[in-house]
């Protein structure tokens, strides 16, 4: 990747005691690019997400947002300065109505055009219901909608398809693809659904045991013999 990357992380390492969950991973994502991160269970995908988003402190490495070193910045600062994330286990404000929470996040992150986000996720009909009363799929939509509020430069999506049906998951991935291009966001997408990632992502990183196994365009990654042997081989 060139200097046009808005998110750039180098040597990202996370250790829990003696276990190295993420081992010197590099990533660079340019605006409008959807970058998929795949890997078998325990490959360190979620840990990598936590490292990038500031949920966990890095043991080593650097994270740059628009060229600025944000490795030591708190998550609230990151959010208001252009880095947002969604969660694998849906994370919304249960007691609050959909409207209240979206508006609250919109005000905090200076979003002018909340209506278009609400429309993009077709949440109009559920605005006045508390989040605890809507379906799981809709809660996922609220979660991801909240991450897109305020035109962040970088969005980190942790398994947006988790817990959704195959059909819902496909629709969600297509949707994210479209929004990413439309809003010119650099998105990192951690996903279990390998086919989905190959279908929608511009670039793919394959993690295994915390290390980068391969990284590049979907076609290159798919053709990579190491990947085929270690990971895709069993699924293809």
């Amino acid at each position, binding site marked *: 990747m060139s200097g046009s990357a808005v998110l750039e992380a180098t040597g990202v390492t996370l250790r829990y005691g003696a276990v190295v969950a993420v081992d010197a991973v590099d990533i660079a994502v340019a605006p409008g690019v959807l970058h998929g991160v795949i890997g078998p269970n325990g490959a360190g995908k979620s840990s990598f997400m936590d490292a990038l*988003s500031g*949920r966990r402190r890095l043991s080593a490495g650097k994270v740059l947002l628009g060229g600025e070193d944000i490795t030591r910045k*708190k*998550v*609230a600062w990151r*959010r*208001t300065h252009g880095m*947002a*994330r969604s*969660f694998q286990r849906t*994370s*919304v*404000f*249960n*007691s*609050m*109505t959909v*409207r*209240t*929470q979206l*508006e*609250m*996040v*919109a*005000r*905090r*992150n200076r979003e002018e055009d*909340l*209506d278009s986000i*609400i429309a993009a996720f077709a949440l*109009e009909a559920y*605005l*006045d219901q*508390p989040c605890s009363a809507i379906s799981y799929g809709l809660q996922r939509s609220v979660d991801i909608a*909240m991450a897109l509020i*305020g035109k962040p430069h970088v969005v980190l999506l942790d398994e947006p398809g988790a817990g959704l049906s195959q059909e819902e998951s496909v629709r969600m991935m297509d949707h994210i693809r479209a929004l990413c291009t439309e809003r010119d966001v650099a998105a990192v997408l951690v996903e279990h659904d390998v086919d989905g990632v190959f279908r929608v992502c511009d670039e793919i990183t394959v993690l295994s045991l915390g290390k980068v196994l391969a990284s590049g365009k979907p076609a290159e990654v798919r053709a990579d013999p190491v990947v085929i042997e270690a990971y895709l081989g069993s699924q293809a």
Partner: protein
Amino acid sequence: MSSVPTAVQTDDPTVVPKPDDGGRGMLDSRVSVGLQRRVVLRGLIVAAVVLVAGLFVPDLITSSYYMGVAADGVVLGIMAIGIGFLANRSGLISLGHTAFYGGSAYGLAIATTHWGWSPTSAALFAIVGGTLLAVAIGALVIRSTGFGFLMLTLAFGQALYAVSTLTSVRSVTGAFDGISVTYPSDSTTFLGLSQADLGQPDTFWPLAWICLVVVAFALWLVGRSRFGVTLEAIRENEERARFSGYNTYLPRLGAFAISGACASIAGVLFALKASYVSPDVLGFQLAGDSLIATIVGGFTILIGPAIGAVLYIYAQGKFGDTGNLELYMGLALIVAVIFLPGGVTGWVVEQLRRLRTLTAGRKEARRS
């Protein structure tokens, strides 16, 4: 986090924001968040009516004993709604509000008796001092939640109690003997009330009642404001609030300070009325009892704790002499927590709501 408020905040049902369709779209972002002028105005009118109506209570209650119960209940109630506000808005259960209640009571007593201040400036000093104490203690304890928070607040409250009883500060606090509040001269008044007036329930009543209504209205405003929404978000999901760009420490500290300010106001009123302050105002007993009053009254409704406080003062008069108060308090707490999650007031509101849907259903059936 594992905290109490499982029940959704049930504000006055008349002020639920209805989407205003007068020319604005349904997605208008100004509709539900923050304070709308119309809602505030309606709340202000309700508060004013309640305030004026309450001033006639001494005309209704002729027994000076029951007037005393009402006045003491309102004073404790101001502290209780502060504790309830914190519990409801931040999900934090405090056993340490006696630090601010007792701290400000001592503040008033010391400033008038030892420094010769007028009761008015002493009261101001005590309320500001109690609130600053809440900020200082809050800064240390507000990061913890659940039992950690409960025990830290308890420890700070009890530490203050221990300080007040030290013989080395006897000249200031009077240790276990306490302080008899003495005004600089017999003619000094507090907002026109002499020390004797303040000691009489019916003349003291307007002061306590106005404070209660003003505090309750202020808390209602805070709860409905953007700040209140932020607090709710932090209570519901602290991590997501941070990942939505909110610093979660300062709002929680703010809620704690507001709640501590309520306790400080109550402490000053107590000292004004009783004209005597002893370590009991910082004691574990009061810490526990005010929390029980808050929970039994029910803190999902703003004024629930105040009603719990009045019930408590009534029970104290009835069972305090036989010593069985503790027994009944314990039983009430157990029953309230297990069977009445919203306390007494929460239960009443729930029954009213059920009745309303029932009658509405019947009307519907008759029509069709």
